[in-house]
């Protein structure tokens, strides 16, 4: 059964698989469809209710890899897991990586993903030198910043709506080894966070903060700030990549992750570090992908599923407002992450990141959650912010259309044989703007 990572909304779609580039066009025979990767998007950008999805993850071959220059070309269904295993032993790593390695190259492009180094390296698409896009009329377009540039801009972050991405060429980043030199610093509030992130931008490639989202009042916005750099380590070492150490085999009861267990977890997490700061080394796998150690952890949320609320706002007052609303309305987020984006130019028409602060919260599905989040959406719109489609399952058409004003420019590039649950939701309702 095909579902998204949040397991919400529940949809019904048939699924076919593509194994070969020259056969990908067959998926358009029974229209309409949607190319999907490993379903690591939380909401409905990878869903197509009452229709079809075409799964690309079995089309996962390498095409070329220049071990001298780090230029890599692979079929779009290859996973980052696979890619790291080949590239890292040769001294190359992903220029931008999300918090899980189980996403496909095509998925990374179509959501124009970002990582802990956004302030330095921008989004994924910035490092994509070229890709091939198959349209339902049978044409294949090679796109780069210079060639078919407008197609490039529509397809990166384009949520799979412009065609099927067949292969992607990517410039990797040179690294010395598998280790990250890491510092973890405690901060008591958002003002301290701001000081830390500004002080770290220059000297640290990776910065991110974990927030104790269960605390309020004086403790609001406290957390742990993490900053790191690739260690300069000449010892060559084959990457040790775990598929998963533990696997959650079945759905947990709905109440496992409740207000109290989440609160306790957050307090313990904050207290794990009694000292003001900690310095050490971490393997890249546990630094970038801590959650991958638990297979199918999304099942912990039980039958109802969960949502992720990822927002970007220009200043920290907005972030404080959201944190306050969450506690005052008894929405507890198991894992909350805060990061400052850099002033990098937007790569795609619909790319999410923009200058400001991005907060990510996990919330079990509930009626209360919908009510609060809808109200927060209004706040976000008023304050010039927006939500990340890759994580979204519920924002209104008006919310999307207002915060992504370039969405109408997509019309020219949409493939008539492609659609998604997300796109129907955010475009078919009449906008009141």
């Amino acid at each position: 059964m095909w579902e998204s990572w949040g397991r919400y909304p529940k949809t019904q779609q048939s699924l076919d698989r593509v194994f070969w580039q020259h056969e990908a066009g067959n998926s358009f025979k029974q229209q309409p469809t949607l190319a999907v990767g490993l379903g690591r998007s939380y909401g409905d950008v990878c869903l197509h209710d009452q229709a079809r999805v075409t799964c690309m993850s079995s089309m996962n071959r390498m095409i070329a890899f220049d071990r001298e220059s780090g230029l890599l070309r692979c079929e779009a269904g290859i996973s980052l897991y696979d890619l790291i295993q080949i590239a890292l032993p040769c001294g190359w790593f992903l220029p931008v990586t999300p918090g899980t390695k189980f996403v496909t190259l095509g998925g990374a492009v179509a959501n124009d993903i970002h990582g802990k180094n956004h302030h330095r390296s921008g989004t994924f698409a910035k490092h994509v030198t070229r890709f091939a896009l198959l349209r339902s009329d049978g044409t294949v377009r090679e796109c780069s910043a210079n060639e078919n540039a407008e197609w490039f801009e529509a397809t990166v972050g384009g949520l799979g709506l412009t065609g099927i991405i067949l292969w992607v060429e990517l410039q990797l980043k040179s690294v010395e080894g598998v280790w990250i030199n890491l510092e973890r610093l405690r901060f008591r509030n958002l003002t301290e966070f701001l000081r830390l992130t500004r002080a770290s931008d220059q000297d640290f490639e990776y910065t991110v903060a974990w927030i104790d989202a269960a605390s309020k009042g004086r403790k609001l916005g406290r957390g742990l700030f993490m900053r790191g750099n690739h260690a300069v380590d000449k010892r060559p070492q084959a990457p040790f990549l775990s598929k998963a150490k533990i696997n959650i085999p079945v759905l947990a009861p709905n109440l496992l992750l409740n207000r109290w267990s989440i609160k306790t977890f957050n307090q313990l997490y904050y207290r794990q570090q009694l000292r003001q700061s900690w310095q050490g080394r971490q393997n890249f796998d546990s630094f970038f992908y801590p959650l991958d150690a638990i297979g199918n952890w999304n099942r912990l949320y039980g039958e109802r599923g969960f949502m992720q609320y990822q927002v970007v706002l220009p200043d920290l007052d907005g972030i404080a407002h959201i944190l306050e609303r969450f506690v005052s309305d008894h929405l507890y987020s198991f894992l909350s992450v805060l990061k400052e984006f850099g002033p990098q130019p937007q790569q795609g028409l619909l790319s999410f990141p923009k200058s400001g602060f991005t907060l990510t919260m996990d919330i079990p599905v509930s009626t209360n959650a919908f009510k609060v989040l809808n109200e927060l959406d209004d706040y976000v719109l008023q304050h010039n912010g927006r939500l990340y489609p890759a994580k979204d399952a519920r924002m209104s058409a008006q919310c999307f259309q207002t915060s992504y004003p370039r969405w109408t420019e997509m019309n020219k590039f949409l493939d008539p044989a492609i659609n998604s649950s997300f796109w129907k939701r955010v475009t078919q309702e009449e906008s009141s703007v």
Partner: protein
Amino acid sequence: MNVVIFGATSAIAQAAAQVWAKRGDKLLLIARSQEKLVAVTHDLATRTQSNVTYKVFDLAATDQHDQLFAEINQHFSVVDRALIAHGSLPDQRACENDINQSEQQWTTNFNSPALLTLRLLKLLRSQEKGRLGVITSVAGERGRQSNNIYGSAKGGLSILLAGIQHQLHGKDVSVTDIRPGFVATPMTAHLKQGFLFVEPETIAKSLVNAIDAGRSVVYLPWFWRWIMLIIRCVPRFLFHRTQL
């Protein structure tokens, strides 16, 4: 080591080829689609920087196998490992209605691999060493209403392999009967993928190990051995009431 793979564009064969290429073996890939062979060759060569060559050949053309073997001999002075992987899963009802289709299926699933096996056997015996693996199927172990054109070809192949194993007793030449259960590949993409399905990568290592070790029969994954034991033991009067 020198490895020849017949039906090398099969998903299971590709996964096995990765295991061989990773350990530095030289590969000769044989299959009928040029486009697919190019993609697979690039993939293996890019991942492992090993020496990979391909040859386009329709393996159902059994009358041209001698030419094919002449080319293999030119390419490799010694063949250390060989894998026969090609096959096709037919539509049972269509085969019943159109007898010609049944014949084609038997050619692909029995004649072709059986004749290749005999030729490889000659070659390996002349070298006095070498190991061959042939992919049959758990579907060959008991005749069923739903799949007996395919099943009979695979079952016949298994009996041939068992006989050859008898002959090879005590020699440094071996033939392994590889019996996969459900593997998620293009062949099974149209079926509903239940919990028994595994990815080709999951079984590739065991496949290669079994050939290396010269094992007679290997079930992939291992638990199929026990499932098939049960299926073989079900009395006929009960079995015939099932939809299997």
